[in-house]
């Protein structure tokens, strides 16, 4: 044993700043599972729940009211750790990704066009200060596709008066093509927990993962049986096998010889491309983009311009509207556009 070692510095950390549970437990969990190249393990990610105005105030507290005008180099891990764990400060120098995901929330009593614009203008790089993705009107917009391809997505908007958020969620649930697919892993997880008493979280995780990795219907029941036999009671294991085999059988992906993850990866690529087209629609009026122009269009997108457009469109409480647009899925395209276009 020597005493040369000082404090060990842990690099390559990731920070996800979000508003609610859906962002972290459902959407980003699924994104990182479907795109393992991005190399972020959900279990090791630092998640901070807040809203955009609270975060704005936290920044003001450390850097002063003029941080935006003065173009301060904001260190979010520092700002947040200073507030949460003042004894264990963290710095952005140790973070490879800082992602901020917030809802537009026009109806929030704290809503301020200036503050939200300041945030959008300054948080533009996930590898540096952090990147802000605002979803319009809410995170759920990533599911707001009714079919593939969805030509009507270009003009899809909601009235400003549609509130609270619950209303929009209900609307998406009614119209979406994707709800069941996104929820599928969680349905399996809940089934194993509630009906088959698989109480160990790790066991359950592994079971779900193995079941979702199945990409062929031949011999599927045997495979599911072998996945379940060690974790489900003998008295229940057969019923569980039949039920899960039935569930998986009803999914399209397994008949196309894909795993759930492969399938959802393709779905995400579609979601991203639809939203690139939509962003282009908002910025320049054009929704249909030729396939070979996707990357060029994507590189031209300007989230600040989009925010300005949205602010303008939604100004009037009665007649105003919000373009449905999900920007946080752009994280994947930004990481590496080949992830989106490679078959």
């Amino acid at each position: 044993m020597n005493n040369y070692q000082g404090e060990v510095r842990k690099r390559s950390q990731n920070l996800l700043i979000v508003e609610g549970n859906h962002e972290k437990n459902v959407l980003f969990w699924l994104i990182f599972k479907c795109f393992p190249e991005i190399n972020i393990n959900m279990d090791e990610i630092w998640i901070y729940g807040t809203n955009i105005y609270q975060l704005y105030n936290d920044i003001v507290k450390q850097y002063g009211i003029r941080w935006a005008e003065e173009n301060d180099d904001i260190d979010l891990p520092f700002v947040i750790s200073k507030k949460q764990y003042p004894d264990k400060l963290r710095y952005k120098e140790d973070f490879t990704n800082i992602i901020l995901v917030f809802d537009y929330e026009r109806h929030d009593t704290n809503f301020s066009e200036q503050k939200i614009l300041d945030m959008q203008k300054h948080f533009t790089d996930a590898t540096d200060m952090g990147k802000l993705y605002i979803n319009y009107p809410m995170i759920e917009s990533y599911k707001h596709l009714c079919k593939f391809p969805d030509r009507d997505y270009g003009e899809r908007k909601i009235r400003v008066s549609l509130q609270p958020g619950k209303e929009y969620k209900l609307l998406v649930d009614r119209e979406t093509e994707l709800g069941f697919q996104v929820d599928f892993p969680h349905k399996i997880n809940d089934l194993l927990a509630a009906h088959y008493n698989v109480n160990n979280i790790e066991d359950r995780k592994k079971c779900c993962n193995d079941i979702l990795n199945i990409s062929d219907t031949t011999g599927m029941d045997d495979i599911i049986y072998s996945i379940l036999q060690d974790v489900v009671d003998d008295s229940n294991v057969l019923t569980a096998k039949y039920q899960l085999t039935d569930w998986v059988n009803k999914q399209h992906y397994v008949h196309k010889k894909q795993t759930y993850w492969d399938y959802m990866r393709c779905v995400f690529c579609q979601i991203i491309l639809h939203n690139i087209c939509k962003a282009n629609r908002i910025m320049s009026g054009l929704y249909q983009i030729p396939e070979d122009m996707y990357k060029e269009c994507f590189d031209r997108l300007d989230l600040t311009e989009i925010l300005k457009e949205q602010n303008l469109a939604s100004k009037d409480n009665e007649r105003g509207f919000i373009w449905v647009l999900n920007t946080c899925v752009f994280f994947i395209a930004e990481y590496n556009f080949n992830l989106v276009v490679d078959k």
Partner: protein
Amino acid sequence: MLKKFTLRNYKNFKDEIYIDFNNIAGYQFSTDCINNGIISKMLIYGRNATGKTNLGKALMDIYVIMFGGRIYMDTGVFLNADSKADSATFSYEFEFENNMLKYEYSRFFNQELKNEKLIIDGKTIFMCNFERAEFYFDNLDYINAETAIIERYLQSVDIEDDTEEIQEPKLPFLRWLTSNVALNSDSILIKLSNYVRSMTMITAGNMMLRLSRRINEGFFETLEDSDRLKDLEDFLNEMGIECRLVLKKLPDGQRELYFLHEKLVPFYETASSGTLVLVDLYRRFISRSWTPSFIYLDEFDAFYHYEMAEKVINYFKKKYSKCQIIMTSHNTNLMTNRLMRPDCLFILSRSGTLTALCNATPRELREGHNLEKMYISGEFEKYE
């Protein structure tokens, strides 16, 4: 131009390591780091003791093979200390006006040649295996060298000689060929020879700058020309060292350089480390009218302020736009797309791999990315 260099079993490099100057990505910025589709300005980072200096020495090995001499002769342990292989292998691939030339050789622990091989445009020109005394010279006519009197050469490397006399090191056939055959001036071997002759390496660490008075004597002589002294002064000022210089001839005939103040201050006794290194760079490159083909600047900015480091790079880019320059540094401030680009910035790892930043992360690197911050936060951790 050197297109690719491959090395195995040399010093700390047990496994194969290569530098592929050809492997560029399509960035539209810092295009002055590329010349004719080949990397011409490269910057290598790496933790201490990963072999940045050794890599430079290895690259310069071809100079020793072709011209002998002691300048770049290696001292110390030559082969990798963990390997069972009996020799270190060097391979250089060049392109000269659309002709491809590949020269490969291996050397034993005592730096004796084990074998050598020259391939031009895919054709093996000659091959010598000194260990087994096997020689192949069938295609010398391809480079118009068929008049070479091979027997002479073979006599000189006769390995049957077991007298007690200290044996001369084996003369590489390539060196013998270039110096014993009348080659056309446009011969590819002449081009190779010119390229290698103009290769050079500078290591910051081992320079005895303050003691080099004798070397400086010639330099001082050139500075007697007041325009040239002014040029040195301008260079120093431009790079960030504000000073005025004056050269005096002492009664004993020696010349001495001074900083001009109310009283004269002797230059070499008082100049700062950074100034000395910078003046040495000036003396070796800028004051001489030669065109280097390849420069390995090892820890070139070890004593420089970050702004000076940047200025020196920009100066070299402009002055030696066609020269292939490899720099090594610990100054992460230079890791920026403003100056370099992700396919010209490399990390040498502890395990002996050399990876360009653009290949060290699955992330698509863009012009706006802050590469220095990414490096520090561990984006390229797996390749460090």
